[in-house]
Protein backbone atom coordinates (compact mmCIF):
# COMPACT_ATOMS: atom_id res chain seq x y z
CA UNK A 1 0.00 0.00 0.00
CA UNK A 2 1.41 3.33 -1.01
CA UNK A 3 1.71 6.23 1.32
CA UNK A 4 -0.99 8.06 -0.65
CA UNK A 5 -3.48 5.15 -0.32
CA UNK A 6 -2.88 5.00 3.43
CA UNK A 7 -3.57 8.68 3.79
CA UNK A 8 -6.75 8.38 1.73
CA UNK A 9 -8.11 5.57 3.95
CA UNK A 10 -7.30 7.53 7.09
CA UNK A 11 -9.09 10.64 5.79
CA UNK A 12 -12.17 8.60 4.83
CA UNK A 13 -12.31 6.92 8.22
CA UNK A 14 -11.94 10.21 10.02
CA UNK A 15 -14.70 11.82 7.93
CA UNK A 16 -17.00 8.87 8.63
CA UNK A 17 -16.47 8.99 12.39
CA UNK A 18 -16.90 12.78 12.44
CA UNK A 19 -20.26 12.44 10.69
CA UNK A 20 -21.27 9.65 13.08
CA UNK A 21 -20.16 11.64 16.13
CA UNK A 22 -21.94 14.79 14.97
CA UNK A 23 -25.18 12.90 14.40
CA UNK A 24 -24.86 11.20 17.78
CA UNK A 25 -24.18 14.51 19.54
CA UNK A 26 -27.08 16.24 17.75
CA UNK A 27 -29.39 13.44 18.88
CA UNK A 28 -28.20 13.76 22.50
CA UNK A 29 -28.55 17.55 22.50
CA UNK A 30 -32.09 17.14 21.11
CA UNK A 31 -33.02 14.68 23.84
CA UNK A 32 -31.56 16.89 26.58
CA UNK A 33 -33.30 19.97 25.26
CA UNK A 34 -36.61 18.12 25.15
CA UNK A 35 -36.16 16.99 28.73
CA UNK A 36 -35.23 20.46 29.91
CA UNK A 37 -38.07 22.28 28.17
CA UNK A 38 -40.67 19.75 29.26
CA UNK A 39 -39.37 19.96 32.83
CA UNK A 40 -39.34 23.71 32.90
CA UNK A 41 -43.08 23.96 32.87
CA UNK A 42 -44.18 21.20 35.20
CA UNK A 43 -45.01 21.35 38.90
CA UNK A 44 -45.55 18.38 41.14
CA UNK A 45 -47.16 18.60 44.58
CA UNK A 46 -47.24 15.88 47.21
CA UNK A 47 -50.15 16.64 49.53
CA UNK A 48 -49.86 14.75 52.81
CA UNK A 49 -51.80 16.90 55.27
CA UNK A 50 -55.57 17.19 55.62
CA UNK A 51 -55.30 20.48 57.48
CA UNK A 52 -57.44 23.21 55.98
CA UNK A 53 -54.72 25.88 55.77
CA UNK A 54 -52.26 23.50 54.11
CA UNK A 55 -54.89 22.38 51.61
CA UNK A 56 -55.59 26.06 50.84
CA UNK A 57 -51.87 26.60 50.17
CA UNK A 58 -51.66 23.46 48.01
CA UNK A 59 -54.65 24.38 45.83
CA UNK A 60 -53.65 28.06 45.58
CA UNK A 61 -50.22 27.07 44.28
CA UNK A 62 -51.72 24.44 41.97
CA UNK A 63 -54.31 26.73 40.37
CA UNK A 64 -51.84 29.61 40.15
CA UNK A 65 -49.28 27.39 38.40
CA UNK A 66 -51.91 26.02 36.03
CA UNK A 67 -52.98 29.59 35.22
CA UNK A 68 -49.34 30.39 34.44
CA UNK A 69 -49.44 27.66 31.83
CA UNK A 70 -47.66 25.00 33.87
CA UNK A 71 -48.65 21.36 33.81
CA UNK A 72 -49.54 20.52 37.41
CA UNK A 73 -49.89 17.16 39.06
CA UNK A 74 -50.90 16.65 42.69
CA UNK A 75 -50.37 13.41 44.58
CA UNK A 76 -52.63 12.90 47.60
CA UNK A 77 -51.39 10.54 50.24
CA UNK A 78 -52.12 9.65 53.85
CA UNK A 79 -54.33 12.17 55.69
CA UNK A 80 -54.80 14.29 52.57
CA UNK A 81 -56.59 11.36 50.92
CA UNK A 82 -59.31 11.60 53.55
CA UNK A 83 -59.70 15.34 52.85
CA UNK A 84 -60.77 14.50 49.28
CA UNK A 85 -63.91 12.76 50.59
CA UNK A 86 -67.31 14.33 49.99
CA UNK A 87 -69.38 15.22 52.98
CA UNK A 88 -71.99 12.60 53.83
CA UNK A 89 -72.54 9.00 54.81
CA UNK A 90 -69.80 6.42 54.59
CA UNK A 91 -69.93 3.70 51.95
CA UNK A 92 -71.30 0.35 52.98
CA UNK A 93 -69.37 -2.89 53.50
CA UNK A 94 -66.58 -1.46 55.67
CA UNK A 95 -64.89 -3.19 58.61
CA UNK A 96 -65.20 -1.70 62.13
CA UNK A 97 -61.72 -0.17 61.97
CA UNK A 98 -62.43 1.33 58.52
CA UNK A 99 -65.68 2.85 59.88
CA UNK A 100 -63.72 4.35 62.79
CA UNK A 101 -61.29 5.94 60.31
CA UNK A 102 -64.35 7.38 58.59
CA UNK A 103 -65.67 8.90 61.82
CA UNK A 104 -62.33 10.37 62.86
CA UNK A 105 -61.60 11.73 59.39
CA UNK A 106 -64.83 13.25 58.11
CA UNK A 107 -65.16 14.32 54.48
CA UNK A 108 -65.93 17.78 53.14
CA UNK A 109 -63.44 20.65 52.94
CA UNK A 110 -65.36 22.66 55.56
CA UNK A 111 -64.77 19.88 58.11
CA UNK A 112 -60.99 20.01 57.83
CA UNK A 113 -59.25 21.49 60.86
CA UNK A 114 -56.72 24.32 60.88
CA UNK A 115 -53.14 23.37 61.73
CA UNK A 116 -53.08 26.22 64.26
CA UNK A 117 -55.77 27.96 66.32
CA UNK A 118 -58.59 25.68 65.26
CA UNK A 119 -60.00 25.92 68.81
CA UNK A 120 -62.57 23.16 68.31
CA UNK A 121 -63.90 24.79 65.16
CA UNK A 122 -64.00 28.40 66.42
CA UNK A 123 -60.83 29.39 64.54
CA UNK A 124 -62.05 27.65 61.42
CA UNK A 125 -65.37 29.49 61.58
CA UNK A 126 -63.65 32.86 62.04
CA UNK A 127 -61.24 32.13 59.21
CA UNK A 128 -64.16 31.23 56.92
CA UNK A 129 -65.97 34.44 57.81
CA UNK A 130 -62.89 36.56 57.17
CA UNK A 131 -62.29 34.82 53.85
CA UNK A 132 -65.87 35.59 52.80
CA UNK A 133 -65.54 39.20 53.90
CA UNK A 134 -62.26 39.75 52.10
CA UNK A 135 -63.45 37.94 48.99
CA UNK A 136 -60.78 35.24 49.22
CA UNK A 137 -61.60 32.18 47.13
CA UNK A 138 -62.90 29.24 49.17
CA UNK A 139 -61.23 25.85 49.02
CA UNK A 140 -64.20 24.53 47.01
CA UNK A 141 -63.76 27.33 44.44
CA UNK A 142 -60.02 26.66 44.21
CA UNK A 143 -60.60 22.94 43.63
CA UNK A 144 -63.20 23.73 40.93
CA UNK A 145 -60.73 26.12 39.25
CA UNK A 146 -57.96 23.52 39.45
CA UNK A 147 -60.30 21.03 37.79
CA UNK A 148 -61.19 23.51 35.06
CA UNK A 149 -57.54 24.36 34.36
CA UNK A 150 -56.64 20.69 34.02
CA UNK A 151 -54.70 20.08 37.25
CA UNK A 152 -54.12 16.35 37.53
CA UNK A 153 -54.79 14.54 40.81
CA UNK A 154 -53.33 11.17 41.67
CA UNK A 155 -54.62 9.50 44.82
CA UNK A 156 -52.46 7.08 46.81
CA UNK A 157 -54.08 3.67 46.45
CA UNK A 158 -52.32 2.39 49.58
CA UNK A 159 -53.74 5.22 51.74
CA UNK A 160 -57.20 4.56 50.29
CA UNK A 161 -57.11 0.93 51.29
CA UNK A 162 -55.42 1.60 54.65
CA UNK A 163 -58.17 3.99 55.72
CA UNK A 164 -60.90 2.05 53.96
CA UNK A 165 -61.85 4.96 51.71
CA UNK A 166 -63.96 3.91 48.72
CA UNK A 167 -63.62 5.67 45.31
CA UNK A 168 -67.33 6.60 45.37
CA UNK A 169 -66.72 8.59 48.58
CA UNK A 170 -64.32 11.00 46.85
CA UNK A 171 -65.21 14.38 45.33
CA UNK A 172 -66.18 14.59 41.65
CA UNK A 173 -63.06 15.60 39.77
CA UNK A 174 -62.34 15.02 36.08
CA UNK A 175 -58.63 14.17 36.03
CA UNK A 176 -58.34 11.90 39.07
CA UNK A 177 -56.68 8.51 39.13
CA UNK A 178 -55.48 6.01 41.73
CA UNK A 179 -51.81 5.28 41.75
CA UNK A 180 -48.75 4.42 43.80
CA UNK A 181 -45.32 5.79 44.61
CA UNK A 182 -43.85 4.80 41.23
CA UNK A 183 -46.35 6.98 39.37
CA UNK A 184 -45.77 9.85 41.81
CA UNK A 185 -41.98 9.54 41.34
CA UNK A 186 -42.36 9.33 37.59
CA UNK A 187 -44.47 12.50 37.55
CA UNK A 188 -42.19 14.34 39.95
CA UNK A 189 -39.03 13.42 38.02
CA UNK A 190 -40.65 15.00 34.96
CA UNK A 191 -41.09 18.26 36.91
CA UNK A 192 -38.61 20.95 37.80
CA UNK A 193 -40.32 21.63 41.13
CA UNK A 194 -41.76 19.19 43.65
CA UNK A 195 -43.33 20.41 46.88
CA UNK A 196 -44.40 18.37 49.90
CA UNK A 197 -47.30 19.88 51.80
Amino acid at each position, binding site marked *: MSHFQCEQIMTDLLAETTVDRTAELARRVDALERRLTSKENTLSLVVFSNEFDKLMAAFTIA*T*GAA*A*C*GMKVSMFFTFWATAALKKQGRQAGGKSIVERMFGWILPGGFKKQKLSKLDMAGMGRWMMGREMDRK*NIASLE*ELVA*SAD*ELGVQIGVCEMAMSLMGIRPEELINYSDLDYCGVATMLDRSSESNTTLFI
Partner: protein
Amino acid sequence: MTNVSEIDLTGMKCPMPIVHLTKLMKTLDDGDEVTAFATDPAFCLDVEAWCKRTGHELVELVNSENRVSAKICKTETQE
Protein backbone atom coordinates in the same frame (compact mmCIF):
# COMPACT_ATOMS: atom_id res chain seq x y z
CA MET B 1 -58.92 42.67 13.14
CA THR B 2 -57.69 43.07 16.69
CA ASN B 3 -60.34 42.43 19.24
CA VAL B 4 -60.14 44.76 22.26
CA SER B 5 -61.84 43.81 25.51
CA GLU B 6 -61.83 44.48 29.24
CA ILE B 7 -62.07 42.28 32.30
CA ASP B 8 -63.00 43.42 35.78
CA LEU B 9 -60.99 41.58 38.41
CA THR B 10 -61.56 44.10 41.16
CA GLY B 11 -62.16 42.71 44.62
CA MET B 12 -60.63 39.33 43.76
CA LYS B 13 -57.72 37.97 45.76
CA CYS B 14 -54.83 35.73 44.75
CA PRO B 15 -54.99 33.43 42.78
CA MET B 16 -58.40 34.27 41.29
CA PRO B 17 -57.35 37.29 39.14
CA ILE B 18 -54.89 35.20 37.10
CA VAL B 19 -57.29 32.24 37.06
CA HIS B 20 -60.03 34.37 35.50
CA LEU B 21 -57.53 36.01 33.16
CA THR B 22 -56.39 32.57 31.99
CA LYS B 23 -59.95 31.45 31.35
CA LEU B 24 -60.63 34.61 29.31
CA MET B 25 -57.40 34.24 27.32
CA LYS B 26 -58.49 30.80 26.16
CA THR B 27 -61.48 32.37 24.39
CA LEU B 28 -59.40 35.04 22.58
CA ASP B 29 -57.45 34.91 19.33
CA ASP B 30 -53.77 35.60 18.80
CA GLY B 31 -53.17 39.36 18.78
CA ASP B 32 -56.34 40.24 20.70
CA GLU B 33 -55.92 42.79 23.46
CA VAL B 34 -57.47 42.81 26.89
CA THR B 35 -57.25 45.35 29.68
CA ALA B 36 -57.58 43.90 33.16
CA PHE B 37 -58.55 45.97 36.19
CA ALA B 38 -57.70 44.68 39.65
CA THR B 39 -57.46 45.87 43.23
CA ASP B 40 -55.40 42.96 44.59
CA PRO B 41 -52.05 44.52 45.64
CA ALA B 42 -50.29 41.32 44.54
CA PHE B 43 -51.68 41.60 41.02
CA CYS B 44 -49.16 44.23 39.91
CA LEU B 45 -46.21 41.86 40.31
CA ASP B 46 -48.25 38.74 39.58
CA VAL B 47 -49.49 39.89 36.19
CA GLU B 48 -45.91 40.56 35.11
CA ALA B 49 -44.84 37.09 36.23
CA TRP B 50 -47.93 35.56 34.63
CA CYS B 51 -47.10 37.21 31.29
CA LYS B 52 -43.51 36.02 31.56
CA ARG B 53 -44.65 32.43 32.15
CA THR B 54 -47.44 32.32 29.58
CA GLY B 55 -45.69 34.36 26.89
CA HIS B 56 -48.47 36.92 26.53
CA GLU B 57 -47.26 40.46 25.95
CA LEU B 58 -47.71 43.01 28.72
CA VAL B 59 -48.34 46.15 26.70
CA GLU B 60 -49.01 48.53 29.58
CA LEU B 61 -49.11 48.34 33.36
CA VAL B 62 -50.48 51.18 35.44
CA ASN B 63 -50.64 51.12 39.22
CA SER B 64 -52.36 54.10 40.76
CA GLU B 65 -54.46 54.64 43.86
CA ASN B 66 -54.69 50.95 44.77
CA ARG B 67 -55.97 50.12 41.33
CA VAL B 68 -53.95 48.23 38.76
CA SER B 69 -54.71 48.18 35.08
CA ALA B 70 -52.82 45.89 32.77
CA LYS B 71 -53.11 45.83 29.02
CA ILE B 72 -52.21 42.42 27.67
CA CYS B 73 -51.85 41.22 24.11
CA LYS B 74 -52.55 37.53 23.55
CA THR B 75 -49.46 35.86 22.11
CA GLU B 76 -49.61 32.22 21.14
CA THR B 77 -46.38 30.48 22.12
CA GLN B 78 -44.96 27.94 19.73
CA GLU B 79 -44.42 24.58 21.37
